[in-house]
């Protein structure tokens, strides 16, 4: 059957004749391959269904060229029609290979219950299903929080099982390696804040207060938010993808069966790394933001650099600084939690890993914004 590729094969042909009164003889010729358009079965089916007096169908394949699955699916359709019409099929005329493959295909019957029909769900039941899913998701999150908390407790008692090398590597990955992107973004945010502020302040001739705006905005909240969002996109997604891939490869199962808690081993070092590095990155981002403001102040508004720095120093209080750091520590926990949670919830396929990473970023950013709102409100109440 493996005729060389370059010969152009004859097109598939089907000729139906009636050698005997009750027999329909189908003569197959030419090459019957998947890559070629095959003749329609309608004609044969039509003659099978219309003529009442056909008792059996026979085949003549003496002029049949190449064939592959194309021929087999064609024949299966004809056989189907025959069995519906109660017509006998004489397979003797078919090539041996075809007969063997058809027998093989029929050998293992369809497993009962394997076939999945499309199920249409009633509105109420789908609504209920969603409610159940939502409560399950909420329970998952609470479970995860609890487990992480217990793991932290274990850490304080000195019972954590992660490897110190992993922690150091993670600290490098989410700290040092994030510096370039954090520099760029915070510098630009500082520039933007100063620029937008300058246009308004110029109206009152109060350009020098640009330093105040930039310093307070950056240090109190923007530095922390910007690093938080950068880390959610950079590190949170990476955590979810790493842990998700481990889930796909059954590596998490391997940890569990070895008696190592995946939360202890994978989640805890990631959280610690981010809780340590986020505030440090935040301080760095604050500095870069102030430098950005300085560039606009000196370059555009002709403020003396020393004057600008003095204003910045005067306006910044330690409270503002601590509030900024508190934000960033909270964001560190949130980003690490979102990444690890989505990773642990990951399904077992490649697209599940992609979904886990996306969902880690979304969860991270949303929780950062909500947390900022809550903290801002709390500070207001406390009068800070």
């Amino acid at each position, binding site marked *: *059957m*493996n005729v*060389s*590729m370059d010969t152009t094969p004859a097109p598939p042909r089907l000729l139906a004749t009636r050698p005997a009164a009750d027999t329909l003889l189908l003569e197959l010729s030419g090459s019957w*391959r*998947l*890559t070629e*358009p*095959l003749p329609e079965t309608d004609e044969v089916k039509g003659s099978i269904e219309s003529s009442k007096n056909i008792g059996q169908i026979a085949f003549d394949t003496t002029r049949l060229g190449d064939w*592959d*699955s*194309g021929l*087999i*699916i064609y024949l*299966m*359709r004809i056989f189907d029609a025959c069995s519906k019409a109660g017509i006998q099929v004489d397979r003797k005329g078919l090539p*041996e*290979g*075809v007969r*063997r*493959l058809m027998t*093989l*295909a*029929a*050998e*293992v*019957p*369809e*497993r009962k219950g*394997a*076939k*999945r029909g499309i199920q249409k769900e009633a509105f109420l039941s789908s609504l209920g299903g969603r409610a159940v899913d939502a409560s399950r998701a909420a329970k998952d999150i609470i479970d995860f929080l609890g487990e992480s908390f217990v793991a932290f407790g274990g850490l304080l008692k000195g019972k954590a099982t992660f490897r110190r090398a992993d922690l150091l590597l993670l600290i490098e990955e989410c700290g040092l390696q994030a510096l370039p992107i954090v520099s760029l973004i915070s510098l630009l945010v500082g520039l933007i804040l100063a620029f937008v502020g300058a246009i308004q302040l110029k109206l009152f001739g109060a350009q020098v207060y640009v330093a105040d705006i930039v310093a307070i905005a950056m240090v109190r909240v923007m530095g922390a938010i910007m690093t938080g969002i950068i880390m959610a996109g950079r590190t949170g997604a990476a955590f979810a993808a790493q842990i998700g891939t481990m889930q*796909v490869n059954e590596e998490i199962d391997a940890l569990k069966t070895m008696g190592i808690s995946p939360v202890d081993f994978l989640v805890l070092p990631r959280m610690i790394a981010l809780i340590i590095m986020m505030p440090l990155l935040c301080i760095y981002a604050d500095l870069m933001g102030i430098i950005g403001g300085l560039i606009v102040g000196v370059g555009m508004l002709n403020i003396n650099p020393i004057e600008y720095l003095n204003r910045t120093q005067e306006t910044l209080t330690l409270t503002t600084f601590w509030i900024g750091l508190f934000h960033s520590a909270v964001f560190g926990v949130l980003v690490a939690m979102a990444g690890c949670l989505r990773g642990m919830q990951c*399904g*077992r*396929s*490649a*697209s*599940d890993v992609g979904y886990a990473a996306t969902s880690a970023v979304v969860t991270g950013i949303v929780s950062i914004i909500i947390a900022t709102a809550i903290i801002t409100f709390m500070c207001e109440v406390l009068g800070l």
Partner: protein
Amino acid sequence: MGGIAAILVEDLDMAYGDFVLMRDLNFTVNRGDVFIIMGGSGCGKSTLLKILVGLKSPARGRVFFGDIDLWAADPKTREAIQRRFGILYQSGALWSSMTLAENIALPLQQYTKLTPGQVREVVALKLALVGLAGFEDFYPSEISGGMKKRAGLARAMALDPDILFFDEPSAGLDPVSSRLLDDLILELRESLKTTIVVVTHELASIFAIGNNSIYLDVEEKTITASGDPRKLRDDSPNSNVHKFLTRGEEGSHNE
């Protein structure tokens, strides 16, 4: 159809960087052969398979399919040759985000002009051939390892390839499933006249299906025996080959 070369390998060297795995490999796979590539672990069986199918380039040498050297051909010709292959990877390598039906349908949609209805019929036929009738809508993560392997075979067979490559087909299968897979391999050769190349070290399979083989020797770094594996077992002068084919039980000629 015996005697016509399907694959001809000449003076092939395989290496990873400076580390030479095998050198001076010369062999011919005939049309309709079930050709076994055997050898101990780490001898480069799977690497050889990767070179044959065009995934890894050889350090030296030529691999001919017909008159065309796979590694000297331009990308288009190489693709045309590769389209005649079907490959069953060690763990199935099914695309995990697609159902079994979608996995098998993809090459059909890509390379044939079949209507969606015909594609469905071909998919059903291929799944039935590997004993998975009715599992169209399952995802790879929902079926067992053995079923994944069979589904991988169904995908490899989707376009009725001239040459089927198997990487460790019986690894991870229970004896009965592994036997069924062997039977299926023989059936494919008989009915579709497919040429089959198998990388394996499962002795039972080797003797059950192989009619031609090469033995890659780790120490000699080349082919030290070739031919019908049953004949090699019974009268190979090479002690390593004999040891391998008798599981190290010297003097025993039983499987």
